[in-house]
């Protein structure tokens, strides 16, 4: 009998454990039903990295944080700068900007928002080079407190991009008093901002829950609770949307678009995002891609529109520039343009004398499908394309070591909404070792534009650069990507080009 009782009790124990585990968390499960109209649930592919706005470098983290932390200035849907924590601003001289701050704003813990918070925040991100956002802010030399609601921002030289910096990822204002008293670690465990939603809880790789901030200075928040769930597997995310577990799902695979649209009560919403998928070509002496004819042949060999229509499921816009509309310096004459002529590609390759040349193309596994098609098209034109697919972190390691061979395929975004961000890589010092692109004329234009405080002539400079690059082809642009979201008809959601989720821009249809 001994054995039996041993086993029985063991089994019993397991059952009890499991039931307890079930009961323990069943209380929470009532909150994740999205049927409650005052809860907004959004399913993302990745979890946030942390609550430190300065130490994040991914859009999906910032998309959550923008609901908790306010910027001084933010982009509206058309990339116009609108006031948030700053009410007005003016340029005092080439290197000084004066900001008037909003009065009567409090942080979630009750601390009042003042100039000291701005100084603390901006100084931190501008000075601490260990922070991931530091490189975007280090041109800010100093923040001077004029009075409690006025500050002067001093840049280390003329900086035409200051407002772009202050309205981008990483510019969220932190509570200086709270952090100084409790320390940054405590802040990260229970973060506090001025935004319309307050931190409630974070279960890593599961969900971030925010609740409304009743004391928000602006329009009253629309939702009681906003939940950001992390669901890495795309098919699970789609299933969750279809089953009604979430209101909005990001990163919908193009193949599921029709399926979601045909489902009653669900819809697909798309918007062009800042990311342009492109091939970057090495011009180092001795590589085949150093020959302009070869680069031209590569451009003509790839049917970009065909790729958009098939693999991307229509979710893309072909372009010959990476500075897409909405970004400062865009040249509309190159947008929605594309080159494709397989016969010409073959001919160019013949003329170059490199027929049959090997092209080693490296790509991160997230763009594998595109790369396979591009490789097939290059082979069609008479190249011998070798595809190397790396998983994302191996790719980024290779990327930062600049050790690609002839081609790498990458989708590059632009959180600054300014052409300079696209073109820094073609500055001579930056290009060294990566593309080794070197065109003195481009160099001069880019260097001048970096410190040009006159928007009109600055725009001209970037447009000229674009025309040159379109012919020089240090990169071949495939298309501007589009964000595909699935949404429940319960909510009205218009995606933004910067991929942020401002919960209050998402409205409940039921009121």
């Amino acid at each position: 009998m001994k054995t039996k009782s041993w086993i029985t009790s063991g089994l019993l124990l397991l059952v009890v454990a499991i039931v307890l585990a079930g009961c323990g968390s069943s209380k929470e499960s009532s909150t994740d039903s999205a049927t409650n109209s005052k809860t907004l649930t959004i399913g993302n592919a990745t979890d946030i990295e942390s609550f430190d706005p300065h130490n994040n470098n991914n859009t999906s983290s910032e998309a959550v944080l923008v609901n908790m932390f306010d910027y001084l200035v933010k982009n509206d849907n058309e990339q116009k700068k609108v006031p948030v924590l700053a009410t007005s601003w003016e340029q005092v001289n080439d290197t000084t900007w004066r900001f008037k701050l909003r009065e009567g704003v409090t942080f979630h813990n009750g601390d009042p928002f003042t100039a000291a918070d701005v100084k603390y925040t901006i100084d931190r991100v501008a000075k601490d080079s260990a922070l991931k956002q530091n490189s975007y802010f280090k041109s800010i030399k100093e923040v001077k407190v004029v009075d409690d609601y006025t500050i002067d921002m001093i840049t280390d030289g003329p900086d035409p991009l200051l407002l772009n910096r202050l309205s981008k990822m990483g510019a969220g204002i932190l509570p200086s008093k709270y952090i100084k008293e409790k320390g940054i670690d405590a802040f990260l465990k229970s973060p506090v901002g001025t935004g319309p939603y307050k931190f409630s809880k974070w279960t890593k790789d599961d969900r971030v829950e925010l609740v409304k901030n009743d004391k928000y200075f602006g329009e009253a928040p629309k939702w009681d609770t906003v939940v950001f769930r992390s669901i890495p597997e795309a098919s699970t995310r789609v299933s969750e949307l279809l089953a009604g577990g979430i209101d909005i799902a990001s990163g919908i695979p193009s193949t599921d678009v029709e399926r979601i649209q045909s489902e009653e009560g669900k819809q697909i919403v798309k918007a062009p995002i800042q990311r342009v998928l492109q091939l970057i070509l090495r011009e180092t002496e001795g590589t085949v891609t150093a020959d302009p004819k070869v680069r031209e042949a590569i451009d003509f060999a790839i049917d970009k529109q065909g790729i958009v229509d098939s693999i991307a499921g229509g979710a893309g816009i072909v372009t010959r520039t990476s500075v897409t509309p909405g970004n400062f310096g865009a040249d509309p004459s190159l947008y929605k343009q594309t080159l494709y002529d397989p016969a010409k590609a073959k001919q160019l390759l013949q003329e170059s004398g490199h027929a049959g040349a090997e092209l080693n193309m490296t790509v991160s596994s997230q763009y594998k499908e595109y790369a396979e098609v591009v490789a097939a098209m290059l082979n069609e034109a008479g190249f011998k394309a070798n595809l190397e697919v790396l998983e994302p972190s191996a790719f980024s390691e290779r990327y930062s070591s600049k050790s690609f061979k002839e081609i790498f395929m990458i989708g590059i975004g632009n959180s600054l909404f300014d052409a300079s961000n696209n073109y820094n890589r073609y500055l001579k010092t930056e290009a060294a070792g990566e593309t080794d692109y070197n065109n003195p004329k481009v160099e001069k234009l880019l260097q001048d534009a970096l410190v040009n405080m006159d928007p009109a002539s600055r725009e001209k400079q970037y447009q000229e650069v674009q025309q040159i690059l379109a012919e020089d082809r240090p990169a071949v642009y495939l298309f501007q990507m589009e964000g595909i979201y699935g949404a429940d008809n319960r909510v009205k959601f218009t995606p933004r080009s910067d991929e942020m989720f401002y919960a209050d821009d998402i409205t409940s249809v039921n009121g």
Partner: protein
Amino acid sequence: MKGYIIKSLLQVIPVLLLVSLIVFILVRVTGDPVALMLPETATAEDRAVLTEALGLDQPLYKQYITFLGSALQGDFGTSFRYGESALPLVLERLPASFELAVAAMIFAIIMAIPLGILSAVKRNTFTDLLISGISVIGKAMPNFWMGIMLILFFSVMLGALPVSGRGGIEHLLLPAFTLGIGIGAQMTRLVRSSMLEILNQDYILTAKSKGLRPFIIIMKHAFRNGLIPVVTIVGLQFTSLIGGTLITETVFAWPGLGQLLVTAVNTHDMAIVQASVFVIALIVIIGNLLTDISYRLLDPRIRYS
């Protein structure tokens, strides 16, 4: 018995040392941690500073000793994804994974015992063939495929169960099934073969000839003896169960150790990888030890006395 336990405990030490060596070697071959931790704009000087700070300029054996020393104090370094110490991050994921693994194991046992007995009793009939067919398919189907199909069927088509995430017991059913079916299949086969062995033993045959009803024979004699191998396999299978959570948790967005590990491996967050491999190894070793001890407790000689 006491001596045996002490001896086994002593053997755990060299095994853990070897695990630490394996982990260390893995981390050493992980390309360039410095390049990953620094932004693209870092200079050569930045790299040198970080290399020194991480102790990567030291000879390997010294690095290993340092590594071992801090590992013993529970310090596996800082996760650069979360910017926090790695070990607590790993430990806070254990309850979720444990819940899933236990549920999967219970499912496997609930599936294996009746099916295994049935197929032993109905040996070589159609039922037997059907059961072994189904259980083998359960083992032969790639995990993630099954998980995705289960979601599509039960959650999207029928709307009966939640799709993903951790919550009440209803959240547990699909992932537990996905994770447990392979082990359940294996157990079914084990129960079947051990039942067959027992059913052919003299005392059962005697009971049969005395005219006892087959159901009673099975319940009274064969059942509990046939269970012994199941108990032992429960412990041994925990390793593969933990391996299985890597897949299952990713499919079902289950916030456990498996997902943490997959993300850590994909982002080369080596502090997390080190800490989790260590913790998992420790759990497995202790699990095996307990199985071993309980197996000894269940020794056949005790059974028949």
